[in-house]
């Protein structure tokens, strides 16, 4: 007898409460993101795929000093220097091995030329291990860059040493 009244009480009082909760949630906005079609905006300090910055006139900022490679705890950066016709240092080869990189951002902190930054892109799957080695061409931003630089660059103009214009 007790069980019967308990069950009837549940049907009359408790069950409508439960039904109300689920019915209320039926009209709420789903939290699912329609991922490949829409992407979530990443956090401002997100550390994604690296990119190499340029000066406003289009020359590369990287002078191949090797500080990023020295700072890299995963030993993922390899570079070889060369000289330009003006006698400046630049990188002939600059490679980052994604399979080693831990996206710590130390290279970005170490860089004295504000050349390397960790960007927003996070989709880098590939079907070949060799595709995970990014070369300079993969990472350099296009010259007349389409979007504004995401990270704030302090020094926008190149310091030119050893030329008559610089000494004047």
């Amino acid at each position, binding site marked *: 007898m007790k*069980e*019967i009244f308990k*069950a*009837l009480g549940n*049907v009359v009082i408790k*069950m409508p409460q*439960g*039904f109300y*909760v*689920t*019915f209320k*949630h*039926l*009209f*709420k*906005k*789903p*939290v*699912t993101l*329609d991922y490949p079609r829409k992407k979530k905006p990443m956090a401002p300090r997100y550390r994604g795929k690296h990119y190499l910055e340029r000066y406003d006139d289009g020359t590369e900022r990287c002078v191949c000093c090797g500080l990023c490679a020295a700072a890299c705890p995963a030993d993922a950066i390899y570079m070889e220097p060369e000289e330009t016709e003006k006698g400046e240092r630049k990188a002939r080869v600059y490679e980052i091995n994604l399979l080693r990189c831990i996206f710590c951002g130390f290279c970005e902190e170490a860089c004295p030329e504000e050349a390397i930054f960790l960007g927003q892109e996070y989709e880098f799957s590939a079907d070949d291990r060799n595709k995970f080695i990014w070369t300079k061409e993969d990472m350099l931003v296009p010259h007349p860059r389409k979007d504004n630089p995401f990270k704030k660059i302090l020094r926008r103009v190149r310091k030119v040493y050893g030329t008559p214009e610089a000494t004047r």
Partner: protein
Amino acid sequence: MLEMILITAVKVFMVLSAVLTACAYSTYLERKVVAHMQHRVGPLYAGPYGLLQPLADAVKLAFKEDLVPDNVERVTYALAPVASFVPAILIFAVVPFSNGFTWFGYDIPGVISDLNIGVLYIFAMTSLGVYGIVLAGWSSPSKYSMMGAIRSSAQMISYEISYGLSIIGILIIGNTLSLTEIVAQQAAESWVFFGNWYIVKQPLGFLLYITCAIAETNRAPFDLPEAESELVGGYHTEYSSMRFSMFFIAEYAYMLGVAAVGATLFLGGWNGPFLPPVIWFLIKVFLFMFLYIWLRATFPRFRYDQLMQFGWKVLFPLAIANTMGTAVWVVLSGQ
């Protein structure tokens, strides 16, 4: 004679295709409603709003490999999906979906077969469904299937009596077993169009019917025979491809059948103002189906002993009390 056969054949074809389509889209409805109740979006990619998802599912199931495990009892194994599927479809033979109409000089009743023992027939058919489940569990060489089958039979014994008794009240008041007559008794007499529906005279019977019907069709929160979280897939663990899809369709056909019978017995069948009778019937079936899905999204599964206790100690006495009360009331009011 020939034209009667032709008319019946056309009606059978129409009802069958409608039922199978409704089964397919019940899965879509269920996935969408449950998804939105859980802040998800449900099927979205196949067609606009994922509307072609049932079709994609059907194609996928049809092209899958029909895997038969070792050590099965082959005859029983092959028979079980059929035994589950056929009675589910047969329910719709006696459900009146519309009023009769005259077409090209022929009187066409809105039911495939106006059986004078329709209610009895329906309850026979719904009870046959458990054989498919028990045979599937028996023939499969898996302990999970066996557990599902045993649970199903125990559940069936616990609920079948209350299920039968829940509608005795209607039979006492209506004094008939024909579904067409029961619908005719619920026709509107005044502007209160639901005044004669049996849900008004038998509210307790309606609650009992819903509860037992959900247990009868093995749906949440009484889905112990297939209990995914404990028994993998329950009785259909060892089935794949079309055989599995037959179980799947059978489950939804049972739901639809029980919903249609509930709408006929308690909600006045096709009776209703303004809209055509078929539309009213479909609305009522939809409400039942929505309740099924809503319940699944809301409540967790019963424990096995709780289910037995609930069936025997709560539902059964309530069903008897309802029957007795109705009988006393009918006698005293002198109807």
